[in-house]
């Protein structure tokens, strides 16, 4: 008999009168890894909140281990024994691994800590999963992967039978994700269940026993791996994105054939033996209008590189050239950096919409803050594009889409030679990813070089002209667009490149595309 760990039965949950989850039904069995792919993020934060805490429901029933823990008539506010692991770590950075796992745990009653005892207690847990993280290491010094393992161990030690993993692919590299899958499978065999939230089916397919698709705050369908046409289900929801990838590829090919690209020889930006921190020296260049993806396989380069590029930190060694000119990267307006989760991290709530937009214009118009005429004409010019009403709103009042548009339009106005985007698609729902794609495309059309820094390839690959996979020791593998089909990863849209390669080997590309798509049940 299968044991039920979590059951949500027709849950309708409202926040300030707005329905976040509607008739939400989901079951997680003991020892199961259930994938959850949110097509749009509507209701997802509410679901995570509701899993962690029993909040008043509008309607429905929630069972944990077949025991009713929350229902629409109760006013319980208890915390559930469900762990949630996401990008934002819940560990205390100033404490050691052992302290975080054993001491910061509900039910820990001791008054005196014995580090040696804790270390001994931790050993079997580490051995069990084949990890070797020192028990006395401070959490602040650990890599994101190690932190993840510590959080996982903390949940296991606390006896939580359900662990929610929210978009872990975005902060853990491909190689580490494989290790994590091994650990998850190990614990699943021991009866611990996981809710694996990921943006793409390709990611959940690698590890999950079932995958549920979430849309508009409800589960629309659950898929078993035995359900055959697994991939196509998701593509039906994102066919616009797929269509766009195809159009982009075709346009690129057209340009290459007509020679419009003009041979991207002169580099807009070049890194020469650039050593930022933990990783080895970096050597790469990017041409105007080219999109380069730098995939950080060990998740040890991006943070340092961004700090160096934004002038926060000096490079240990090496140099950067912009249009062949050496730059010290301090207050350099020829380089723009779009930080991770740009809508939250790159806007200033105290400043008006227009001031946020003109924030980096000082190099182009040194008197932008003195002359109102410039700002007025910017408002007039970009009003049609961004929506005139947006200019009268405060930053807090803006929608997610308006925030992203504001950040990217600021960069367009700045007109740098190169833009570095840190995981631009991270945390964005499908429709938002379309918009980010369009905005990046605008930059490329303007001749701005775009460098996407990613841990997980996911959506970034579709826009890329070139991919460099970076390793901790400084090693790097470079892939041209035509080599994308050879990538040893399971990533969305990869099959498009594989189709293309198969097409080259056969009669004609168009014909082959049609044949392959027909096989996959896709509309071309």
């Amino acid at each position: 008999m299968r044991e039920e760990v979590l059951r949500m039965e027709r849950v309708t949950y409202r926040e300030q009168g707005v329905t976040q989850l509607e008739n939400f039904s989901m079951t997680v069995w003991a020892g199961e890894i259930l994938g959850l792919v949110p097509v749009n993020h509507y209701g997802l934060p509410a679901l995570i909140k509701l899993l962690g805490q029993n909040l008043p429901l509008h309607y429905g029933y929630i069972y944990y281990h077949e025991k009713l823990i929350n229902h629409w008539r109760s006013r319980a506010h208890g915390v559930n024994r469900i762990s949630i692991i996401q990008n934002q770590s819940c560990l205390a950075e100033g404490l050691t691994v052992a302290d975080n796992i054993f001491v910061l745990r509900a039910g820990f009653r001791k008054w005196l800590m014995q580090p040696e005892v804790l270390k001994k207690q931790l050993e079997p847990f580490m051995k069990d999963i084949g990890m070797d993280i020192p028990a006395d290491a401070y959490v602040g010094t650990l890599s994101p992967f190690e932190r993840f393992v510590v959080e996982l161990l903390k949940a296991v030690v606390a006896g939580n039978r359900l662990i929610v993993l929210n978009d872990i692919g975005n902060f853990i590299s491909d190689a580490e994700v494989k290790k994590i899958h091994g650990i998850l499978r190990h614990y699943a065999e021991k009866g611990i269940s996981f809710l694996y939230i990921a943006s793409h089916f390709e990611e959940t397919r690698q590890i999950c026993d079932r995958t549920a698709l979430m849309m508009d705050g409800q589960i629309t369908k659950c898929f078993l791996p035995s359900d055959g046409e697994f991939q196509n289900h998701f593509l039906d929801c994102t066919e616009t994105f797929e269509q766009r990838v195809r159009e982009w590829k075709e346009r690129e090919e057209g340009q290459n054939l007509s020679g419009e690209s003009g041979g991207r020889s002169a580099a807009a930006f070049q890194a020469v033996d650039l050593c930022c921190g933990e990783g080895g020296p970096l050597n790469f260049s990017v041409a105007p209008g080219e999109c380069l993806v730098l995939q950080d396989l060990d998740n040890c380069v991006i943070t340092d590189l961004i700090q160096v590029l934004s002038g926060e930190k000096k490079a240990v060694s090496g140099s950067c050239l912009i249009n062949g000119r050496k730059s010290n990267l301090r207050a350099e307006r020829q380089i723009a950096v779009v930080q991770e989760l740009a809508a939250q991290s790159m806007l200033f709530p105290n400043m008006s919409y227009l001031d946020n937009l003109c924030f980096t214009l000082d190099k182009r118009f040194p008197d932008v803050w003195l002359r109102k005429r410039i700002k007025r004409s910017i408002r007039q010019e970009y009003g049609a594009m961004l929506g005139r009403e947006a200019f009268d709103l405060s930053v807090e009042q803006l929608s997610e889409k308006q925030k992203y548009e504001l950040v990217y339009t600021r960069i367009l106005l700045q007109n740098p030679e190169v833009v570095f985007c840190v995981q631009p698609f991270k945390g964005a729902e499908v429709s938002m990813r379309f918009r980010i794609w369009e905005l990046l495309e605008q930059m490329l059309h303007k001749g701005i070089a775009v460098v996407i820094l990613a841990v997980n390839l996911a959506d970034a690959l579709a826009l890329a002209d070139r991919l460099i996979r970076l390793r901790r020791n400084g090693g790097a593998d470079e892939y041209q667009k035509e080599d994308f089909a050879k990538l040893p990863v399971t990533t969305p849209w990869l099959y498009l490149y594989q189709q293309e390669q198969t097409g080259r080997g056969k009669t004609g590309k168009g014909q082959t595309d049609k044949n392959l798509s027909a096989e996959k049940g896709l509309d071309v």
Partner: protein
Amino acid sequence: MKKWNKTLTPRIFLVFGLLGTLMIFLLVCVLTAAAAGAISPWCFVTAFIAALFLVGLIIVWIVRPYRRMEEKMELFLDGYMTTDLDALYELLPTPASLRVMRRVGRMMDSAEILRMNKRQAQYLALQNQINPHFLYNTLESIRSEALLEGLTSVADMTEALATFFRYTISKVENLVSVEEELANCETYFSIQKYRFGERLHLEIECNPEEREEIYRCRMPKLTMQPILENSIIHGTECKIDGGHLKIRLELSGRRLSILISDDGCGMDAAALAKMNEKLGKSGKVLAEQSGEAQGGIALVNVNNRIHLLFGEEYGLHVFSMPGVGTDVEITLPAITNDREIQNKEALRKEAFR
């Protein structure tokens, strides 16, 4: 909770009484002070504490219960809760309204609601109009004639139809075993196979180790067949190529979960939300049920019967995606004895009809 305390009115009277006492106390204090020439600070402290106590009492005793009552009434008006009116009795404005609610509760007796179930009524009407034995004998005669003429397929079809009618019309009991219900589904499917031929496939899946236990579980009669019928008619009929239907049974500690899936046309998110809303708000659907034209009536009927017999926490839920297919999940309590049923009264009355 004591009887007098089950309505808001005595609480309001009590609070007003306390308020009046406080006012008299303050008046006495003022008059005493006027006579003595000075007001004692203790009077103010006592009055302040009493006022705080009164405010707290009003919030805890009147405002909060009133809000809760309002929320529950809104939910009831929205169509939630068909049987469990006890939640509404928790607190009412006056003793008379409490009596009214009890009367409404009795009027909305579960068996009465079961009778309102249209499909059920149709079967009962059929049962009253047709003499079952006459029907079986006629079908048997057709079968014999067909066999004599060497028309094996017609004979088999007639036999299947007779078996199907015997199950749906003759057996008046409300609960059947999963095995019987599955057998009826297979009979129904075999009849449909004559129409669809090899285009239609049915698969029944369950853990072989639990098969016996699952098959012994009790469930309302005609729960799976209407859903299977829906899957064929709305899901597979519109498809040019074949349709695969799957019935997956799963047993957890206290629950039996049956998933009926098809790989048919499916429905979009809006239609799915509407369907699940209908299933959630069974009371409203019952109240507003007007004609045959309403979509998904079979699912709603099955869902209502489950709600009435086992409670609101069991029932149907639909998952669907356009072009991919539809899954209908039936959740039932895992019971092997009719005596374990929650609403025995409804079952007894229905069986005697």
